[in-house]
């Protein structure tokens, strides 16, 4: 075991020995002794002596080669903050930052960023970002890849921190997440300025045909720009896609909103126009080799996040041109929405929905044309919206032909009774509108309407259709039929229902009647069984199981089961009464 004195002695020894040698002839042993002795001295509190050794003019070569190894214990002291050795360690640290080789300092600093617990992560970032910046600046024209490495590590570390969700959490910033975001922006600032400056110079040079930057120099500039672009793209994904930004009226000063705005500003500074990024999905994929690169450079999720920030939060609005048509914006944004809705995280789904709604609202009702439905996302996205409000909104924006085709498509593909029922209700509304004077259109009356009606006025499985499973659809179909029979005069037959009636009777009404009777009989039987089983429950403690249509009802108390069965029977009554009413109406009209 070394004593404090011993370590200091060894350090002085190796330093003295090396003073006489040229720096390229220090041995591995020299390095090791310096490292171990130096680190021990610092750990044991002998920083004053280490400082004087490190500052000594005769030792600068040694410090330059080996000094960076002292970083770990130094940083430990700096993180502790209350250590009495703090001032000396800080002085050593700063001197090393200026003297040692940048590449080695970089490695040393990045190593110390790697922490596990959130508190240390946040504190290390806060301590080390400014030194990192200093070191990178020292690298001059060679800094690009090192900056990339640094940014990657920083973002990895930040990703380990818990995110604030509520306004209070953002204000309190217990885990210093917001502070880290602010620190990151400060960190990249000089590099952003450099890229901005380069771009300006390039513009000026191309105007004066005076190239002072050679080919290699230009490549380095591009690399720097690329690293910053990567940083922005990553940030857009995490944390920006995961946090819920608060509006100014909720939280006047929001570090997260500021962070988001700064990222957008950085993109602008490095020459990436926000409108080009939002419109990216529509880029024609001409060059195949280039295309893959585009996808990597501009990850879809990041672009979607950007669109959300611009359209929902209106960040950097003054740099986004107000000349694009709302239909075009919707066209681009629906791709972003599609990306977000295909994720599983609640925050991303929520943002997808918000972006979709925001984009739809800007479009006039009935202005989207049918040819837009050739774009797959216009068909798939509405279906993935949770909640009827936005679904109805998307329907409302289609023009009449597009509505027609959309309903056709949904009836064919949805396989969901509730959705189908909702579509059928919409069809009824459209027919109602078409029948009003002055609104005549070719889609919801006349010849075109028939094919659509045929898909509605039908029982999916004939008389065996499970009426409870398909209830929504069946009820809406009945409502529609009743409406048609009442509204459309036999003599006018604007909807064509009267000529189709015999088919509707065969395909829909008769099988429905049979189905209702069958189901009612079955449920009445089950009800009786259940009531009898309940009576005899006092005798046996048996588990009651009720099966309907081959599927067992979940185990409930007998009372609940009886209630469920009554409810089912009531439903059949309801179906039957509407059916009977329709038959009545038809008879009346037939006799006119």
């Amino acid at each position, binding site marked *: 075991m070394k004593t404090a004195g011993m370590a200091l002695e060894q350090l002085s020894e190796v330093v003295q020995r090396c003073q006489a040698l040229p720096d390229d002839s220090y041995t591995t042993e020299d390095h090791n002794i310096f490292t171990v002795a130096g680190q021990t001295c610092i750990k044991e509190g002998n920083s004053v002596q280490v400082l004087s050794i490190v500052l000594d003019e005769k030792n600068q070569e040694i410090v330059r080669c080996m000094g960076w190894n002292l970083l770990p214990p130094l940083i430990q002291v700096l993180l502790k903050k209350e250590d009495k050795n703090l001032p000396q360690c800080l002085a050593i640290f700063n001197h090393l930052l200026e003297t040692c080789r940048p590449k080695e300092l970089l490695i040393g600093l990045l190593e110390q960023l790697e922490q596990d617990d959130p508190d240390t992560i946040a504190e290390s970032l806060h301590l080390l970002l400014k030194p990192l910046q200093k070191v990178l600046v020292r690298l001059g024209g060679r800094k690009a890849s090192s900056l990339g490495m640094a940014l990657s590590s920083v973002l990895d570390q930040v990703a380990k921190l818990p995110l604030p969700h509520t306004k209070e959490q953002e204000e309190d910033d217990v885990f210093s997440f917001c502070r880290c975001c602010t620190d990151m922006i400060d960190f990249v600032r000089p590099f952003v300025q450099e890229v901005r400056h380069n771009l300006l110079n390039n513009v000026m040079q191309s105007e004066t045909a005076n190239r002072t930057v050679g080919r290699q120099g230009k490549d380095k500039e591009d690399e720097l720009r690329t690293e910053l672009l990567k940083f922005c793209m990553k940030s857009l994904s995490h944390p920006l896609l995961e946090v819920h930004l608060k509006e100014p009226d909720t939280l006047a000063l929001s570090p997260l909103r500021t962070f988001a705005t700064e990222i957008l500003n950085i993109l602008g500074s490095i020459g990436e126009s926000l409108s080009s990024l939002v419109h990216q999905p529509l880029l024609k994929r001409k060059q195949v080799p280039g295309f893959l690169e585009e996808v990597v450079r501009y990850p879809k999720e990041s672009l979607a996040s950007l669109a959300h920030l611009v359209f929902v939060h209106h960040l950097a609005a003054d740099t986004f041109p107000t000349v694009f048509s709302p239909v075009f914006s919707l066209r681009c944004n629906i791709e972003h929405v599609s990306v977000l809705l295909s994720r599983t995280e609640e925050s991303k789904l929520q943002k997808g929905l918000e972006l979709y709604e925001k984009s739809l609202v800007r479009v006039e009702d009935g202005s989207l044309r049918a040819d837009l439905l050739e774009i797959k996302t216009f068909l798939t996205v509405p279906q993935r919206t949770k909640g009827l409000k936005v679904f109805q909104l998307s329907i409302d924006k289609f*023009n009449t032909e597009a509505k027609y085709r959309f309903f056709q498509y949904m009836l064919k593909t949805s396989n969901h009774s509730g959705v189908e029922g909702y579509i059928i209700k919409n069809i009824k509304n459209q027919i109602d509108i078409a029948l009003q004077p002055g609104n005549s259109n070719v889609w919801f009356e006349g010849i075109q309407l028939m094919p659509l009606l045929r898909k509605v006025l039908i029982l999916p499985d004939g008389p065996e259709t499970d009426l409870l499973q398909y209830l929504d659809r069946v009820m809406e179909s009945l409502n529609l039929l009743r409406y048609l029979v009442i509204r459309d005069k036999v003599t006018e037959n604007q909807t064509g229902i009267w000529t189709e009636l015999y088919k509707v009777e065969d395909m829909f009404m008769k099988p429905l009647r049979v189905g209702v009777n069958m189901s009612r009989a079955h449920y009445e039987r089950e009800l009786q069984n259940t009531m009898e089983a309940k009576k005899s429950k006092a005798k046996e403690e048996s588990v009651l199981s009720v099966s309907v249509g081959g599927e067992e009802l979940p185990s409930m108390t007998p009372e609940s089961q009886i209630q469920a069965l009554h409810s089912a029977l009531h439903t059949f009554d309801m179906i039957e009464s509407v059916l009977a009413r329709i038959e009545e109406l038809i008879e009346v009209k037939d006799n006119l």
Partner: protein
Amino acid sequence: LKMAAEPTREWSDEQLKSDDLSKKDIIKFLQDNAAHSFLNEHKLLGNIKNVAKTAKKEQLIIAYDQLFESKRFKGTEAVEEVTEKVKAVKVEEKPKDVKTEVVDEGPPKYTKSVLKKGDKTNFPKKGDTVSCWYTGTLEDGTVFDTNVPTGAKKKKQAKPLSFKVGLGKVIRGWDEALLTMSKGETARLEIDPEWAYGKKGVPESKIPPNAKLIFEVELVSVD
């Protein structure tokens, strides 16, 4: 107001048909002497070059003849006549049997005044990429958007807005107007809300509902 004397018929039928008389000559005469509504009906309004592209010589000869037959020279049309014509257009019945949804074209919902002439040669076609500097204001003068750099600092980094024209990517007023502009032209466009942001407006960008928008646009390049 000095009333112009009725113009005389200079060219005979033979002269009209001959190659010595170009389409442009006839068009120029007609534009100089015929009433606005006459020119409109015969599709003779606009840039002489463009009219020359679309009109056949036979049509022009017929128009020339008709002008002297009907005597619908400039300054002969009473104001009442014009209003009657406008009324008639409004009352016109829409055809009953429509196969597809016919978009009612109607008159253009924007006006253009040329502030600085372009080269009159390079006109963008649908699908061409155009670049513009622009400033957009509301009727009350509020500037809601511009890409013209202000102040020396940002001057060199600003870029003109580039997009493919005539494809519905921008508000209709822009799409229509830019197709009539030539490279280098600066124009003042006043766009009705129907061809701008309509009933909704864009609240976030200070554009209220039913806002008429005024743009000063400079067409920098056409690709």
